[in-house]
């Protein structure tokens, strides 16, 4: 992964709650064996009409949200299926930050494995951001992970909390597996003990 850098970009708004991963990337696109190329299918069933043309009603099709890298969305974003195709599609489409009050657990984990910063805010903060975007579509926010700040032109910015481990990994772009394998000796030691304590698992 690329190290996560401070950036300023357009914030797109999806004023919906409980957006599920079936909507983020519908099942007909889960058959691929590659990790790339899911962006064109992001929100497919909402984004396109039956004839394949863009659905003008769908928020992300608004010209003002073109090139947005920040997605502001309602409660419980990413619920449902564990499919990592959802964050793959979100990242491939161009988003690298999501702002919501809450996320489903598996989706939240998956975001950080794919260079997406999922920021948790309170209802009041979210409402202010939504109002600011609605009043000025195409508005650009600054995301500063290092200092844990969201900065907006209207001054609705705030500091946010994030687990230091997740933050460190995003900032360094380090591979999780590589980090874990530093504990190789401990894993082996645990396994030896495990074989003694639970021999039926290894028989």
């Amino acid at each position, binding site marked *: 992964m690329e190290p996560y850098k401070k950036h300023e970009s357009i914030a797109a708004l999806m004023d919906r709650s409980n957006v599920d991963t079936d909507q983020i990337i519908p099942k007909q696109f889960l058959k691929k064996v590659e990790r790339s190329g899911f962006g064109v299918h992001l929100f497919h069933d909402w984004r396109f009409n039956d004839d394949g043309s863009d659905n003008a009603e769908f928020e992300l099709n608004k010209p003002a949200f073109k090139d947005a890298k920040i997605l502001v969305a309602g409660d419980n974003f990413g619920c449902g299926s564990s499919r990592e195709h959802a964050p793959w599609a979100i990242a491939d489409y161009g988003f690298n930050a999501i702002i919501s009050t809450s996320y489903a657990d598996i989706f939240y984990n998956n975001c950080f*494995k794919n260079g997406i910063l999922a920021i948790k805010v309170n209802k009041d903060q979210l409402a202010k951001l939504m109002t600011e975007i609605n009043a000025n579509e195409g508005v650009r926010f600054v995301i500063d992970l290092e200092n844990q700040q969201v900065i907006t032109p209207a001054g609705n910015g705030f500091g946010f909390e994030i687990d230091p481990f997740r933050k460190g990994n995003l900032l360094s772009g380090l591979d999780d597996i590589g980090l874990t394998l530093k504990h190789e000796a401990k894993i082996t030691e645990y396994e030896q003990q495990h074989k003694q304590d639970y021999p039926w698992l290894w028989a």
Partner: protein
Amino acid sequence: MQIKAILGDNIIQRIVYYAFDRPYNSPYDSYKARMSALEYAMKKTMYEKIWDSHLVVDAAGQAPLLYVDRHLMHEVTSPQAFEGLRISGRKVRNPHSILATMDHCVPTKNRDQPIADPIARKQIETMADNCLENGLNLYDMKSPNNGVIHVVVPEHGFVHPGMVVVCGDSHTATHGAFGALAFGIGTSEVEHVMATQTLPQKKSKTMQVVVNGALSKYASAKDIALAITGKIGTAGGTGYVIEYTGEAIRELSMEGRMTLCNMAIEAGARAGLVAPDEKTYEYLQGREFAPSAQHWDQALAYWKSLPSDDGAVFDATVTLDASDIAPQVSWGTSPEQVVGVDGLVPAPESFSDEIKRKACEGALAYMGLTANTKITDIAIDLVFIGSCTNGRIEDFRIAAEVAKGTKVANGVIAIAVPGSYHVKQQAEDEGLDKIFIEAGWEWRDPGCSMCLAMNGDELTKGQRSASTSNRNFEGRQGKGGRTHLVSPAMAAAAASAGHFVDIRKL
């Protein structure tokens, strides 16, 4: 260090807090309170016991590293993980910890023909190649053991109480029925577990869901699961591991417990757990991957140590009375949008919460329903019985009991998809297939099928289903398809009536 190794970090922290750090009013109070607090601090929930016994590393500044005993796999969420291993030159650390199947993309009829969809075919072939290359146990489409991963795994006794179990699939929660900590992971994590046999994890909070009393006739584990999701919402369990307790849970069969835990994720929980008991041990004994006779007593002693200690404290508790739970029907596009079969489709105005009101409006529009319609007046076009939620033998037994001697209503398509070839065989041995076929049902080969409609079995736009699956999201069963989640008995009754029926009145 020695004591820490025996008791786990958690306990030490609690003892220090309750015996030394916590302020008390008077010296006498303090003595009494410290003694009882010490007693309290020694008590653990089942989740905490499993967590503590699987901690490999718990160092400051890092996510705790949890050991993984069993890794389940299917064709949809694994190919990119194998690709990652190959690119980084890493190997599968313990191939014996893995059991793989093909279920999401597989056709449920004409299985002797090649898969028509070339992309699905490639995914199936890739799975076979990856398993062969890494020496993994795969129940492929031709194997007599093939079926839906969460149906197949218990059939072979691959998951035991006290294990940590993962799979790139949110319905991994199913295996909590055995008292195992089982949860869904993403594909990056699938790769992580293959390479390291561990996962960095954040400890969850604990929620106890107590279901007292007894279920009424034809109310089932599915109805408990839907009623819980209706009560706490799809985000109600976020950040928690749920332990289901109470009389109604003890009464459930292993199949029923699997149905219940399967849908823990629908309430947002990381995992669901049911304490192991005699039913669990009896179910496991003699199965292929269950402990051998040589180790049985030792395993059993360990399993009996797992249930939450009396007086262990949960972070949250939710209580339901089973006798209040009517057969449930979902009316909307989220599994929390459910109501008893004797109820009405709600009106948006009936929700005081603005977000819920808006969600109701959107759901009614998508579902093509009018507020205050009687649930029993909703006509359906298709019935699906199957999936990792309700694709087990008990599900087909109860559905066959309801379907026996009936005919599928005019214009309705009814499909029975066993969760595995073993379920199919067992059902055929009991003559259930004949009951379904005589009633006008299709009797298919196993797979995920219409639960997520990846294999070509799907609803067309505007079609309405009564489905025993787990999710009623927009488009889940096909673009524009309208899903009502129900139990197998409710699905079977709807098939012959052409609309929902209060099966308690049959």
